[in-house]
């Protein structure tokens, strides 16, 4: 499904150049659950952003189902994200001014589905993660766990084939973290490919494979026994 070939990402500020990713090669198969681990600043989030097409590689190719996304236009990438991807962030990234139902609906705001279909999908996504009863609340009125479940509802409302999760349990307590991981594992069992950045070895255990990153390079890739 995903193939990164010699992908590098460098940032330039004034006269300083920082290499976030260096010559990365990575494959992710359809239906896989991959955990990316590594210390802070190693390039995990950059790798996830490139997979999510919200950042572009400085060099190399990003193949998604035989399509080179590194050479695709901005408008095409927006459509790709809209149709194929779901994002879950550590800091939830819900919009304060919108209610929970509006935040979830944002996942379909740019799709061309009929309105009734959108409404039905939003309701289904909220029910699935158990936050339907907080639909009219604003994000700041919810606990961290509830906010992250709302963010997951927003990520799955478009029925993506790939979910990218950037430390989804990083801001949550153990119980809420476990609930979020259960939801992600269930989504994976239903066929959704998941790539997750995490610091937690316990949560990495939910994945079928763990990729270790250090100083912008993939150090090792370990596959858990079935």
């Amino acid at each position, binding site marked *: 499904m995903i193939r990164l070939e010699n992908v590098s990402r460098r940032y330039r500020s004034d006269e300083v150049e920082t290499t976030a990713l260096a010559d990365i090669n990575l494959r992710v198969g359809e239906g896989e659950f991959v955990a990316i681990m590594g210390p802070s600043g190693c390039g995990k989030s*950059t790798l996830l*952003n490139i997979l*999510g097409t*919200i*950042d*572009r590689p400085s060099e190399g190719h990003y193949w998604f189902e035989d399509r080179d996304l590194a050479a695709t236009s*901005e*408008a095409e990438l*927006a*459509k790709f*994200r*809209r*149709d194929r*991807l779901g*994002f879950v*962030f550590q*800091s939830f*990234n819900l*919009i*304060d*001014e919108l209610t929970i139902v509006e935040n979830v609906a*944002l*996942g379909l*705001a*740019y*799709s061309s589905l009929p309105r009734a279909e959108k409404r039905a999908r939003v309701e289904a996504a909220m029910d699935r993660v158990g936050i339907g009863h907080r639909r009219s609340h604003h994000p700041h009125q919810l606990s961290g766990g509830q906010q992250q479940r709302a963010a997951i509802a*927003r990520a799955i409302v*478009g029925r993506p084939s790939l979910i990218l999760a950037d430390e989804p349990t990083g801001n949550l307590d153990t119980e809420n973290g476990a609930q979020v991981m259960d939801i992600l594992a269930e989504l994976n069992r239903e066929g959704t490919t998941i790539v997750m950045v995490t610091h937690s070895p316990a949560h990495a255990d939910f994945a079928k494979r763990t990729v270790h990153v250090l100083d912008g390079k993939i150090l090792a890739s370990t596959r858990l026994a079935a």
Partner: protein
Amino acid sequence: MSSGLLTFYRALTRHKLYALLNIGGLALGIAVFLVLFLFVRFEKSYDSFPGSEYIWVLEEQYFFPGAAEGPSLWTMQGELDQLKADFPDLVGTRFNGLTAVVRDGDHVISEDVTAVDANFFELFRYPAVSGDPTATLADPDGLVLTESAARKYFGAESPIGRTLALDLDGTPYRYKVGAVIRDLPANTSFTTTMFVPFLRERFGGQWYDHWGSSSLTTFLSFRDAEAAQAFAAQLPDFIERHAGATDNFTKPVSNMFRQSIVPLHEIHLFDAADRAMVTTLALVGLLTLLIAIVNYVNLATARSGLRAREVALRKVLGASRARLIRQFMGEAIATVALAALIGLALTELALPFVNATGGSSLAITYLGSGGVLLPLVALVLVVGVVAGAYPALALSGFRPAAVLAAARAPGGGRAGIRLRQGLVVLQFGVAILFAIGTTVMIAQTAHVRSADLGFQRDGLFIVASYVNASQQQQDTLLREFAEVPGVTSVTRANNSPGWQYERNSSNFHRLDRPDLSPSILSVPVGENYFATFGARLRAGRLFDSANRAGDDTAEEAQGATRNVVLNETAVHELGFPNAQAAVGALITDGGRENRVVGVVEDMRFDTPRERVRPMLYMLNTVHPWGPLATVRYRGMAPAQIEGALESVWNRVVPGVPFEGETVESSLYERYYKQDAQRANIFTMGAVLAVLIGCIGLYGLAAFDTTRRIKEIGIRKTLGASTWDVMRLLLGRFLQPVLFANLIAWPLAYFALRGWLSGFDDRIALSPLYFLLASVVATLIAVLTIIGQSWKVARAEPARALRYE
């Protein structure tokens, strides 16, 4: 430097854009307000001098079909004599402008000379530089000069006791200078440079005691308004006693003719349209200032979130709310003071340009009566407190724990957003109101300059000094003007566009309809009158040589029927169904009969503000009373024809200065210039109001897009394209701008309908003006925010998500 002052300084320098928008916008608003304040004060200061509060002007108005609309300040020459006979204690004086030529050696110069009663300077206490003006006017040959006139004719030498040769209304006199007064200020309605005593035997014409005639201005003096009102109450009886004793009016006279008095200082804005315009400009000034204040509040509240952490930290460190309110209020007042200083500098820089464009002579005085410094300090305090109150209260009210714990600075929530959008609606509503007003005013001023006036206005030159030539010279001039290369036609008459000598009106009626008797202005015309002006015949015929015996007043038999040409308004007011029906009809004013031989389209020689009066044209080729010659020319520049006519003039009438102007210039100077200048001032105010509105919108957009960068990152991550984000941002900012149109349109409609009703010749209040102004205002708003929106919409989502 205290920490408060230091923080203020750093807040200004750190957020340079906001500081620029805040201070620049307010400075601009204050500058616009100051300029318009000076303009309005100047307009309202006319004829205010020590003692002017005791002077009233006699005004009169006629009420019958065809009479001029509204009151007039011209009265009968001898009315003051009759008033004094009936009211022995009454004090009054007269002001009679004269056609005057000064002969100074070989030079012959036209001057503004005025004949006034000997007590004129007792009422008009203009300061004397030398001599005694009142004593001078007691001498029948005494002359009072203004300083500049004295300098012009006598240089640095003392003019007292020297003589000047003056031709007044064609008669030569020698006057002796007895006093010099300061030049009359620019804000004077009755301007002149020389004063001579008003003597009936010199300047009292055949109409001196004829009720219904009017040729000078009569001033009356009262100790207070109560005394003036008591006198005014007796005027109707006085009119009935005197005017009613003549055959000039049907009785009671008050049905046709009334007089009243009006305070001198109200004369300049006598016309309701003028008053409305000055009031509008005052409103433009106030509203522009209001917009600037609104901007300040808007930006300050929007920015409040940026300083929330500083406020929270100060509270944690023990600052009380009162102290914080003082700090932010102090900052607001300091900002406004800075803006006021810049505004003052901008005003000083702008005044020469404003004076050139608006035809004014405005200047700032800082101290003393009329000084702007104290009002400006008051303005700074009031605006500072008003503008600073909300941010001060809002900022100091933040709860420190919540602010410090929040990942994002508070921005006032939905209520804050609604407030800021409401303020944008208000300022754009005002800006669009001005934009529509400006569009309509420009369209109207352009219309009056290009409208079909019923005659061909280009290629016409008026020789105004024609009146100063003798009868024989006038005949020669007409012949010689006609031979000038490029001249196609020449005529003489007692009117020309912008000019009308002797408005003799009589009540005419048809022999078959004595019930309709409108007042019709009689215009004696010379040969080629209609051809020269390019008048359009509607029915019948014009005067021609084949019918000279009946057409020409000079050749007709005593008491015979006279042939006349009417304009369409006269035809209408005489009750004819159409122009053709009037041809051949007989009309009379009680004297001789007149046969209508032709009807011409109305020719508007007068102001576009008033309707065209009904007119009756009569031909007189032998003894024409035609003080104006008008020349039609082709293929020459105005300066060329002027030069050619002047050279003829100097040959035929040596020693009398040539005066003339094109019809375009005559109409512009008399009827269009003031409106055009006021439209210019209004336009400047409106452009700046829109600019200030845009500054506010820009600031708000800059703040809001910055605050929403992360949200935009989220939306893009979720699949929003750059265009989706642009639509979102533009829609968000344009929503209040579009809503502002809904508020501005009805207000503009009612205001402009009122303004246009002051013009008889006016444009229709088309919705296109509204659409055009709104589209332009909206486009400007889009241009204002599109750059920022584009920049933010194009940002890479990953970078936007990292933004805090």
